[in-house]
């Protein structure tokens, strides 16, 4: 693992003095170039973590250090250069009147010269497969396409961290696959840290590491396969366990020995057809 990029040190947060704590004494690290998934049910504090990393909110207790800088009022502008964020609603984060204007928005804010903007727009739009939509208006795009533009506009400022805060939650299955594919490509090419925040266990399969949040506390931190093996506990904290994991459980209960916890259908299939070959 690379060097530490983001450190959360005993961070607690609440929205007001009378409000309950949304985050309770959380500590964890995020390393360079890793893919971290944060998962939890609604209200578990996972989106608050994202907003804390970008300086949209500040913790009441504890400290957050990003690339050696502590997050506070003075450092937020330089931190926002390093931390890019894609939100849940595809419509409410599209600022420009056309695709190219929207990708340019973040760069305009940072005073990047026009010539450089033009090259970066075409680079990042081809990275997400939207290069043919340069002058298209947002209302002519699907949700998945809008989210891809949102990813492109974050990539255009070449951040060190890309946070997807439930970026697929409002999309149809097709849009969801589009985004997951785009995210995979981006992660392979750009060498940035990726943080995906979700409540869908299916989406954490490819991550390097998973943090499970429950009621503002870190409930578990492990690799996806280990998380998947704790099905009953996951169900208890309100997460949907994927069908393939349930199936594997039932098979085990019926005396079929499965060697490892399957993450997807292919892995389970592989296990099953080789079952009698091994014995």
């Amino acid at each position, binding site marked *: 693992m690379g060097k530490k990029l983001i450190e959360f040190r005993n961070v607690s947060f609440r929205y007001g003095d009378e409000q309950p704590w949304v985050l309770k004494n959380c500590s964890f690290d995020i390393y360079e170039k890793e893919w971290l998934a944060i998962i939890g049910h609604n209200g578990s504090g996972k989106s608050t973590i994202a907003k804390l990393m*970008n300086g*949209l909110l500040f913790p009441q207790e504890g400290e957050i250090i990003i690339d050696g800088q502590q997050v506070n009022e003075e450092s937020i*502008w330089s931190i*926002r*250069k390093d931390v*890019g*964020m894609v*939100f849940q*609603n595809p*419509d*409410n*984060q*599209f*600022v*420009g*009147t056309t695709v*190219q*204007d929207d990708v*340019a*928005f*973040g*760069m*305009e*804010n*940072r*005073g*990047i*010269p*026009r010539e450089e*903007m*033009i090259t970066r*727009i075409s680079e990042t739009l081809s990275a997400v497969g939207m290069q043919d939509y340069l002058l298209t*208006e*947002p*209302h*002519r795009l699907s949700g998945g396409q809008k989210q891809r533009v949102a990813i492109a*506009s*974050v990539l255009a*400022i070449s951040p060190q961290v890309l946070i997807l805060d439930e970026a697929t939650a409002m999309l149809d299955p097709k849009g969801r696959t589009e985004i997951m594919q785009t995210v995979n490509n981006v992660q392979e090419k750009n060498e940035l840290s990726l943080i995906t925040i979700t409540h869908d266990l299916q989406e954490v399969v490819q991550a390097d590491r998973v943090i499970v949040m429950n009621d503002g506390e870190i409930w578990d931190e492990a690799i996806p396969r280990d998380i998947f093996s704790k099905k009953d506990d996951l169900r208890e904290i309100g997460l949907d366990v994927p069908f393939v994991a349930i199936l594997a459980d039932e098979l085990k209960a019926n005396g079929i020995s499965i060697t490892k916890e399957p993450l997807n259908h292919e892995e389970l299939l592989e296990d099953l057809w080789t079952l009698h070959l091994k014995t």
Partner: protein
Amino acid sequence: MSNSLIIGQYVPGQSLVHKLDPRTKITIIFFFVFIVFFANNLVSYTLLTVFALASMFISRVPIRFILKGLTPVWFLIVFTFILHLFVTKEGTLIFDLYIFEFYTGGVIQGFAISMRFFLLILMTSLLTLTTTPIEITDAIEDMLHPLKKVKFPVHELALMMSISLRFIPTLMQETEKISRAQASRGVDFKTGPIKERAKAVVPLLVPLFVSAFKRAEELAMAMEARGYQGGEGRTKLRELKIEKRDILIYVLFACVIAGLIYTRNY
């Protein structure tokens, strides 16, 4: 619905009028509005009409779009003509009808004033027909730039305009969705007396406003996350550039003004 939706009246095209810098178009129309009132005889009116019609033909905007722009003001044009017909008592008497007397002066005056209206509407609708709203916004931002010295929020105003333009289709789609949802619950938007129909708009407007405010809040957060901190130190992707054709048009327009001043004294 969403695929046929065009914001404003813009008719896409590649003509000279389309390609002109929006600032050039706005400046020329601004002065055109003034000089129309200086025309005082047949020759000067002809000059301005030729200029306006020439612009129209060069723009290659189909006539029906221009006529559509004129429809709301047809009444006004005809009304002023008739008014002048009745009221102006100059020149020689043509004929009288009981208490009404019609003079040549009334006909000429009515015709001249209607012509002024017609020319004004023609030129201004030509601007919106050949320029995208966002180009107009950029031009306004650029032309108001000197006002920054007196703390006038030029950049903020332009950003507000462009965000409004971006959200018009989104909110229209939303309105349609809400009105369908409410119609499915029995709200009747289409029949009944006007008072009832006005009441039916309330369950449409309330959810629309609630969602618009929510959108605004989320958009503000997204903009902040993307590093927006006001107009200071910002660069721009969309660029306005004065080309040779703009200068050519300015020179031509200056000739029209000179011609007008000359023909006024005919």
